[in-house]
């Protein structure tokens, strides 16, 4: 399988076999890291702020012996002078071997990739895609459970606006997992995801109540419900305390169940969960390193 020169824009661009190959390479990176990328330079163009995604890409690159240049604040760049995104890319691709980019506009990564001579890794384009997050989520699920097939994955919270859960649900449809969607009526999983799951004959269930499904879960994927997403404040008040995971709610869960969260969390997972064996969200963030190492090594041709 040859990934050399490939862009990483949308999880939908990758086949099941390609995803499995990336996860296998991530495992190799974690168990046997080598200086695969000495002499390679990565450009990080963060037109929007990010903590985890930028730091973990930079850490991944440097741990493989590569170097990093870039910016984390567009205010200091020529974007402020009115330079177009595609012009910025055509300039930066003269300097670096790979570009990691986060941008506030949906579709910016695809537009960048069209003009770039070097591979583009999409680190989030508006509300659209964040494929490396999905890959690290998959890696985390596989690492903690040893498999995908037969798992029951429960996604809770804002399933309407959360791009991570859309991509995760679609990516998991390559495997025989059962998916449970727990959300208030106004924040349900979008129709296009539901249609996709139906087309692929995936078993899924939608409910507003969290209680009944926690004991079934192998993975609980929590997301944050943001007040500004509700057109009606009264509706928010009704649900704001409902989708909070605390230690007391975990009495009947499976022994090896793991809780994931794309972070940052606010109050949807209480601090008392952190010291239970179920908390796995910080490890999940850590899994960003081998996953992104694998992506970098593959698209730069250092691994096949």
């Amino acid at each position, binding site marked *: 399988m040859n990934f050399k020169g490939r862009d990483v824009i*949308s999880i*939908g661009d990758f086949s099941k076999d390609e995803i499995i190959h990336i996860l296998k390479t991530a495992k190799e990176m974690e168990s046997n890291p080598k200086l695969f990328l000495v002499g390679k330079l990565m450009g990080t163009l963060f037109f929007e702020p990010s903590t985890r995604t930028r730091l973990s890409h930079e850490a991944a690159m440097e741990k493989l012996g590569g170097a990093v240049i870039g910016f984390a604040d567009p205010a200091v760049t020529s974007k402020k002078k009115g330079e*177009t*995104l*595609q012009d910025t890319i055509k300039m930066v691709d003269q300097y670096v071997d790979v570009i990691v980019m986060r*941008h*506030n*506009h*949906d*579709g*910016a990564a*695809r*537009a960048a990739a069209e003009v770039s001579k070097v591979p583009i890794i999409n680190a989030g*384009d*508006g*509300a*659209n*895609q964040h494929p490396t997050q999905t890959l690290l989520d998959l890696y985390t699920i596989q690492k903690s459970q040893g498999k995908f097939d037969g798992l029951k994955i429960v996604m809770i919270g804002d399933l309407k606006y959360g791009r991570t859960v859309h991509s995760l649900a679609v990516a998991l449809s390559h495997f025989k997992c059962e998916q449970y969607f727990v959300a208030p009526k106004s924040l349900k999983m979008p129709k*296009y995801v539901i249609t996709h799951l139906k087309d692929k004959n995936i078993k899924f269930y939608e409910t507003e109540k969290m209680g009944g499904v926690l004991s079934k879960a192998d993975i609980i994927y929590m997301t944050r419900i943001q007040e500004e997403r509700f057109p009606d404040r009264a509706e928010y008040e009704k649900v704001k305390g409902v989708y909070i995971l605390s230690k007391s709610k975990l009495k009947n869960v499976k022994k090896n169940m793991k809780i994931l969260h794309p972070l940052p969390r606010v109050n949807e997972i209480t601090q008392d969960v952190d010291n239970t064996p179920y908390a796995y969200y910080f490890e999940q963030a850590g899994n960003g390193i081998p996953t992104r190492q694998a992506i970098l090594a593959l698209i730069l041709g250092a691994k096949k």
Partner: protein
Amino acid sequence: MSEKKRSISALKNGTVIDHIKNENTFKILQILNLKDEHLMIGTNLKSKKLGKKGIIKVADKELSKEELNKVSFVAPKATIALIKDYDVKKKFEIDFPKEFVGVAKCGNYNCITNNEPVETHFFTLSQDPIIVKCKYCEKVFSNELEII
């Protein structure tokens, strides 16, 4: 010539756009920017295929591929006839494109194509009803999109 065809005057040279969904007849004029051309327009005409249909005859004009793409976006079942000296030289149904480039504006205001000089590009998911997906922001739309 049949009685039906005579309901709108015959065209010496030009293009006939037939089988337009009745309510979209005037939209075609707008998207093709037909302002100065000699036009004959029929609406509320009986049609077996569509119930009611519209027809537009444009004198001394042949539609470009780009213009046909725009027409197909609004009137996917339209037929086109090229007329020379009152004779039909060529008649064809519009081939519904698999992709639309630079035809319609993306309906997502946060799409890169609405914020930077990037040409719009849609993939056709379904022809009837029309459903397209933006290549960039990946949002899916029906034919309510604004034509460029």
